[in-house]
């Protein structure tokens, strides 16, 4: 593994994952920008945006184009996860377990000042898992309801037509939920948290400082120390830095 950073940092996201995230930023924003005016068609700002894009037909064309991109991207993601699982590179770090429920309760207790110690989170904490699964759930709902509205004639060959207006309601509701959750949750966790403001660079550099990992993902830090990827705390002055593999990277060589 090559060093990409002069500081003491470990790799957290592969290049492929960072590209995926970057594409998701683009598709999500374009879809929101072309979709919300269609939901709030009765407002002045919606009218201005639709005019700006050259009319409702162009707006819908852009929306559908980026919807297709997002669907393709999602299919790629599923493929990448399955491939990583087969190759044994995927440790299921994103799967939600009973531990996450406990982590939420313990963290709330810690944040409320009822506990002294922050719970030791794994590679991804419950906040990150929640975001990940919210994107999975949201994309699935948006893709299904969007395709229903795009091809209602075909749907009605096999299913009741009432699914079409129901899909329209769900598409709008899910859109609001997604955009609002990104603003409340993602913007806070990835941008406005006092420790990381103005932004958490991990998703763009692909790396996270060992010190931050120790504070925020104590269990993952302990695992990396045990695996010999990260120098143990006693030997902190050792300048040697190695990068830890992400779920998409090859397993580390035995120590």
């Amino acid at each position, binding site marked *: 593994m090559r060093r990409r950073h002069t500081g003491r940092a470990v790799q957290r996201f592969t290049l492929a994952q960072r590209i995926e995230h970057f594409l998701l930023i683009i598709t999500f924003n374009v879809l929101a920008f072309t979709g919300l005016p269609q939901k709030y068609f009765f407002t002045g700002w919606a009218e201005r945006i639709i005019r700006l894009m050259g009319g409702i037909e162009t707006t819908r064309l852009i929306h559908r184009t980026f919807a297709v991109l997002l669907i393709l991207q999602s299919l790629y993601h599923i493929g990448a996860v399955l491939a990583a699982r087969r190759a044994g590179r995927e440790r299921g770090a994103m799967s939600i377990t009973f531990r996450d429920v406990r982590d939420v309760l313990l963290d709330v207790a810690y944040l409320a000042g009822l506990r002294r110690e922050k719970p030791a989170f794994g590679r991804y904490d419950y906040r990150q898992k929640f975001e990940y699964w919210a994107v999975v759930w949201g994309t699935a709902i948006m893709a299904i309801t969007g395709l229903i509205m795009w091809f209602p004639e075909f749907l009605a060959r096999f299913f009741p037509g009432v699914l079409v*207006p129901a899909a329209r309601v769900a598409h709008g509701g899910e859109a609001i939920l997604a955009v609002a959750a990104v603003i409340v949750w993602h913007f806070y966790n990835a941008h406005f948290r006092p420790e990381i403001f103005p932004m958490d660079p991990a998703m763009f550099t692909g790396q996270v400082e060992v010190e931050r990992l120790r504070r925020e993902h104590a269990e993952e830090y302990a695992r990396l120390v045990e695996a010999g990827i990260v120098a143990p705390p006693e030997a902190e002055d050792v300048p040697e830095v190695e990068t830890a593999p992400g779920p998409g990277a090859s397993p580390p060589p035995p120590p």
Partner: protein
Amino acid sequence: MGTVKPEVAVGCPRVLLRFLVALAGTVALLAVLAGTVGQAAAAAPSQEDETCLACHGTPGLSLTLPGGESVSVSVDSALLRQSVHGSALACATCHPDHTRYPHPPLIARTLRDYRVERSEVCKTCHSQQADEFAGSVHGRALVMGFPDVPTCTSCHGAHDVMRASSPAFRNNTPQLCGSCHGNPEIMARYGLRPVYEAYTREFHGVTTALYKLTKSYSPTPAAICYDCHGVHDIKDTEDPAAPVARRNILTTCRRCHPTAGRFFASAWTEHKTPGPDASPLVWYVQIFYRVLIPAVLGFLAVLTVLDLSRWAGDRLKGGRA
């Protein structure tokens, strides 16, 4: 013809081409000139109409009917000229007994009577539409004497008649029908429910409103009232012969959605706001999101506030130490 052209082009290309270009240019120029002259001729009112407009062109003229209502008898000559009848009809075409002055007294006692009476004039030329209208739910109600039923001028106007096939007329149709079918008071008198508002929130209504923003006409327009209900021959929705009757509705849908599957008709929410009795699935989805959105956001907001307050608390303590 197709075989001659290349031969000519090979034989004497330059001269002939120039001649052809000159010829085409002349023809085009003549056509443009003729068009301008024709338009100018159409725009200027005839001598007889000038006489009428000498009085009726003055704004603010009105006539009091025997019933006490006041009716404007001023005519905006510009609107009249722009109207579809502007260049085709003279004043006397529709007002034949008003060519003399003083005009004969009006027979109608009320404005309503006057308008119903005037629609007889339209029949002279538009007999097919008049026949269709007579058999329609509106036409039959008109004969019964109901006061709100539209006559020709209710939808088409009088002196400002617009071409019914024009995009502007099409685009304005939902509002036009909605002026009655969106009015709960008028609808209640006939045991009908107002449907206009529900239409404006349906996919067809939204799309129609959005198309208008940038284009007067779309090659793939969304359905407006008359696309499904018919134009002059509008039938009661309960009438089995109506295009929107349960047995016919899929056929009607397929006029625009030719590949629509057999369950397609239930995609249409019948101009009803979803509820336990109207498209309940849609209603359940609405309720689901009405609960889910505030619940999720509330949960996330609480966690965010907790996180911030722990950070602020730690800083305060750290500052004191």
